């Protein structure tokens, strides 16, 4: 018993390299050997999904990319899924970026979904207006005029010559705004400066850490659900697959043919096994740390 108590006591000063090694392994092993844990959907993700699902076929959606490579594993799968969802329904997509690296993320997602999967036509089915500096000032600007803020798109084409932009003069002309955001400027700025003043519905996909700040906007109805971190992205992937499999709602012909692709390439779902085990191990660490703390404190009280 004494030896065990000593062991527990020593755990308090466990070398952090051991913790790093264990975390490294518990992340790596499920990535190599997936467990295939089932994904349960939550209200937050369902609200975001059905807000998009309820859009009519000819709806124009403004997507804003406000994340970079550091938050890519969490947010990029959402961007891919939301694009797949919109193009599956035949919606048109206008993309802009408030972060400079968002442009690269947007291009990557478009190349996969719009170009490789759906083989859509640039400028007609979708457009990427690119990055503009100015944070919320850009959002405020496009509530008055897109052309004043984006004279050319990311390829240098004047937006007056882009077919999809002919009916989109201001942010008021889009039917839905979706922000993929990992910080400032991001979803909150879209609600404050575009969604609320123009009465255009807004939803967003965010890193897990941001969701706390967004919940008041979701609860008040100013934001139509939120895709919360990688778990939210995995839930969205699941909902999209269920929709295409069940042939629910609006669906273009290509969507059903792409179903195997959607099932195969769902990064968030694949990563969830690793995140599940890592969270469990961190919780075990916390419990172990507390046991060790109590053993040590009890011993100190004795003397």
């Amino acid at each position, binding site marked *: 018993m004494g030896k065990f108590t000593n062991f527990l006591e020593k755990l308090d000063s*466990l070398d952090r390299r051991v*913790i*790093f090694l*264990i*975390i*490294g392994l518990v*992340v790596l092993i499920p990535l190599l050997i997936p467990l295939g*844990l*089932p994904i349960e959907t*939550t*209200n*937050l993700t369902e609200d975001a999904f059905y807000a998009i699902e309820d859009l009519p076929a000819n709806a124009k959606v403004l997507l804003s990319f406000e994340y*970079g*490579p*550091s*938050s*890519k594993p969490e947010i990029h799968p959402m961007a891919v899924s939301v694009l797949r969802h919109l193009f599956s329904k035949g919606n048109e997509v206008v993309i802009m970026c408030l972060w400079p690296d968002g*442009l*690269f993320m947007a*291009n990557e997602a478009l190349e996969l979904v719009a*170009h490789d999967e759906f083989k859509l036509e*640039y400028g007609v089915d979708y457009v*990427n207006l*690119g990055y503009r*500096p*100015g944070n919320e*000032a850009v959002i405020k*600007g496009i509530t*008055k005029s897109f052309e*004043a*803020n984006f004279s*050319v798109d*990311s390829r*240098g084409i004047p937006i007056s010559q882009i077919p999809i932009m002919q009916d989109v003069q201001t942010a008021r002309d889009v039917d839905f705004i979706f922000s993929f955001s990992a910080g400032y400027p991001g979803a909150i700025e879209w609600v404050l400066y575009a969604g609320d003043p123009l009465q255009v519905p807004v939803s967003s996909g965010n890193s897990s850490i941001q*969701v*706390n*700040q967004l*919940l*008041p906007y*979701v*609860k008040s109805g100013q934001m139509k659900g939120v895709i919360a971190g990688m*778990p939210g992205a*995995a839930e969205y992937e699941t909902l999209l697959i269920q929709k295409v499999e069940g042939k629910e709602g609006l669906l273009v012909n290509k969507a059903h043919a792409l179903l195997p692709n959607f099932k195969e390439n769902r990064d968030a779902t694949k990563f*969830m*096994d690793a*995140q*599940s085990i*890592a*969270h*469990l*191990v*961190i*919780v075990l*660490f*916390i419990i*172990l*740390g*507390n046991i060790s*703390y*109590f053993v040590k404190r009890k011993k100190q009280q004795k003397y």
Partner: protein
Amino acid sequence: MFWKRTIPAIIVGAVGVIMLLSWFIPHAPFDELEIHATQWYDIIASFAMILGALNLLKLQGRKVIKHQKGWFYSLAAILAFFMTLTFGFFIKGGYYPVLISAGDNPEAVYSRISEVTAIGVEEVRNLYAYPSANGERIIMQKAVVTKRYAQKIIEELETLGATVSMGELKWGSHVQGQNTYYRWVFYSFFTPLSATMFALLAFFVASASYRAFKIRNAEATVLLLAGIFIMLGRVPLGAYLTAWTQKISWLSWMHLPTIQEWLYQYPNAAGARAIMIGIGLGIVGTSLRVILGIEKSFMGGD
């Protein structure tokens, strides 16, 4: 004092009042103010970026010259700055061959394009046999960066009987073009470095939780339990481990995702809302102080 303090305060106050009024007057010239203000902001922000770059060079350069501790990191920062600047403004790459006609020997041309672009021959054949509006340009851009290499491919394809011309990405669009130096910097340096920095968080969070998350008092206990419920309830494993509670109606509230969602939607949303209202009132107060000229710390100095 008058020029350094009073005049800027008057300008800030006047702009603040005018912008505030523009919210309540939806008529010219006030309704156009937001557009102009956005453009002014862009111009001022551009100058601020130049100042920021100069400041970075000054601070890091001083460290390198004086061989202060960690000077080599400063050197790396300066080199990275100039490399990105060069590829953004002076050398762009982005040259590519544009296939006008495959000629009399299309299969040989398709085969060579397939080798260069690493795209299957079948796909190349489909793209070129039934080209879309810009399909040809897209796949050729994937393989070529330099003018010299693009010229080499053009000559090879011409030898095979194809008619090919040289394409070049415009300045500006080279930032997001398929194969440009700027893109290479982004994907080869910036992406792995920032992903690595963020990934390290997982290790530090685990280590910090182990050492700091202790039940020292009632508040710490509540925080710890909420943290555990959120961490387990957000992942599929939490749902999987407590799936059995769903079969017993009076225990269904013990389903970890249910507890997690309740914590998220009620105590957490209430706390976040309180903080936001506080911040909002703070912003109103500070803005009024700035507009009225009471708050001058943003001008710098003592």
